[in-house]
């Protein structure tokens, strides 16, 4: 291998490290989102217990 | 019959998990005077801001002159006068300059004369050339009322018009409201307590838990003319 293999290796490592980190970031945001969703679900469950009439309809897309 | 000036259908406003307004229905015709009462944070100001097109509702419709308030064209905007918590006045301009500026914005025929007249009407003729920066809150409030009514709007939205006004000031503003109703404008105002304005039949609504409800009018409250606004003062 040539003299510049270190540069090549560094470049490709960095690409994959950054991609990996971004995937991790997306993952963590998904966890936060899921937690938020569970809070909402709990609120909704409490609501349906309280009165069946007060149940909100499903969200439509683009709302 | 003419179309209603204000028509609100099923209006909703929420911020995150908190609701401010819900199931709000309201129809006001030209020449109607209505007051909305309710505690702090009840949503009174929000309702006025939505009607002025400064805020978008979360659901339902708010129509002014039959137009959705989210996209009000200039010719409808010019027929709305809003007197909000903030006075919209420039502190470094004098009272006269402020009114002349707004008169020009509304392309009134004679801005100088118009400003002059309104300064007289709100009792600020003597301080016409003082900068608003030096005004007391009450004086600023009077000037703010003049600013809102300058272009003789067909719909007058007043947010706490009597706040921080002394007795004379409150009477001046009450007279202006009466004048507006008499010339056929529709007036919608908010206040803390049940207001009385001599010679004007007022509808009173209350916002409670986000809903707007017609308030049972207290007949015994109508005594002795003048104004008895602002319960709890």
């Amino acid at each position, binding site marked *: 291998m040539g003299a510049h293999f270190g540069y090549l290796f560094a470049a490709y490592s960095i690409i994959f490290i950054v991609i990996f980190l971004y995937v991790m970031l997306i993952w963590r945001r998904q966890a936060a989102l899921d937690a938020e969703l569970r809070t909402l679900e709990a609120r909704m469950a409490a609501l349906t217990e309280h009165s069946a009439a007060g149940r909100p309809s499903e969200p439509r897309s683009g709302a | 019959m003419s179309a209603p000036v204000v028509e609100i259908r099923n209006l909703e406003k929420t911020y995150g998990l908190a609701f401010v307004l819900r199931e709000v229905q309201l129809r006001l015709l030209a020449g109607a005077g209505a007051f909305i009462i309710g505690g702090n944070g009840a949503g009174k100001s929000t309702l006025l801001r939505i009607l002025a097109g400064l805020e978008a509702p979360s659901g339902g419709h708010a129509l002014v002159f039959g137009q959705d308030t989210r996209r009000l064209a200039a010719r409808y*905007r010019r027929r709305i006068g809003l007197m*909000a918590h*903030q006075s919209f006045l*420039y*502190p470094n301009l004098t009272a006269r300059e402020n009114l002349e*500026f707004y008169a020009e*914005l509304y392309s009134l025929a004679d801005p100088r004369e118009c400003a002059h007249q309104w300064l007289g009407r709100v009792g600020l003729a003597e301080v016409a050339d003082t900068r608003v920066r030096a005004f007391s809150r009450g004086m600023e409030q009077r000037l703010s009322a003049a600013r809102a009514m300058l272009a003789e709007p067909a719909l007058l939205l007043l947010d706490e018009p009597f706040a921080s006004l002394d007795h004379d000031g409150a009477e001046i503003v009450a007279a202006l409201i009466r004048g507006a109703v008499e010339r056929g404008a529709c007036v919608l105002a908010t206040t803390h307590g049940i207001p009385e304005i001599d010679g004007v039949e007022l509808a009173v609504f209350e916002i409670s838990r986000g809903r707007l409800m017609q308030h049972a009018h207290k007949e015994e409250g109508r005594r002795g003319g003048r104004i008895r606004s602002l319960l709890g003062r």
Partner: protein
Amino acid sequence: MSGFAAVLRKDLRLELRSGESTLALLALSMLVLVVLVFALGAARVRSVDAAAGALWVAMVFAGMLGANRALLAERDNGAIRGLLLSPLDPSTLYAAKLCAAFIFMAVAEVGAVILMVLFFNLDFDASMARLAPILVLGAIGFSALATLLSAITGRTRGGDMLLPILVVPIFVPALIAGVKASAAALSGAPFESMGDWLKIMIAFDVLFVTAGYLLFEHVVGGD
């Protein structure tokens, strides 16, 4: 049209009354030039390239300050809402604000040019006349951009910090062209040699004045 004149007249009157912005702009321009003279060292002081660069640095910083201050006047007492409620067209409001910003910047620039000549040991000669159109084009472009973007940053938290972060990268092409053309003008090069740079600046100005005019209603709208 009367709305345009009313807003512009109001802004100029407010400025004449306090003189705050223009003074602040001039002071900042002077400070930037002084800092650059020290930073560049005595060896570089007589170079026209350094002078042109310093002038534009001063202009960018002063312009940023001016844009922030122009909006401040409208934020007091929520006056901007009063303007938006009035029949005034948002595009007209943009045009008036752009004109006001341009005038303040032009005044500050005249001061900055005089200081540049003094600090960088240049002469008041014909090159100043060649510099004028370049600075005018630069000020138009910067005002157009800063007026649009300050309406955005003025309504967000920490907006004063955000304004330079948003404005400077977008302003880069006009900045490159402006510095190059100014250096050429100061070194006495013929007018034709600046032609391409001036074309870039004209393109920038046309694009961003149009963009601001069309997009302003979206950044000042309600909610």
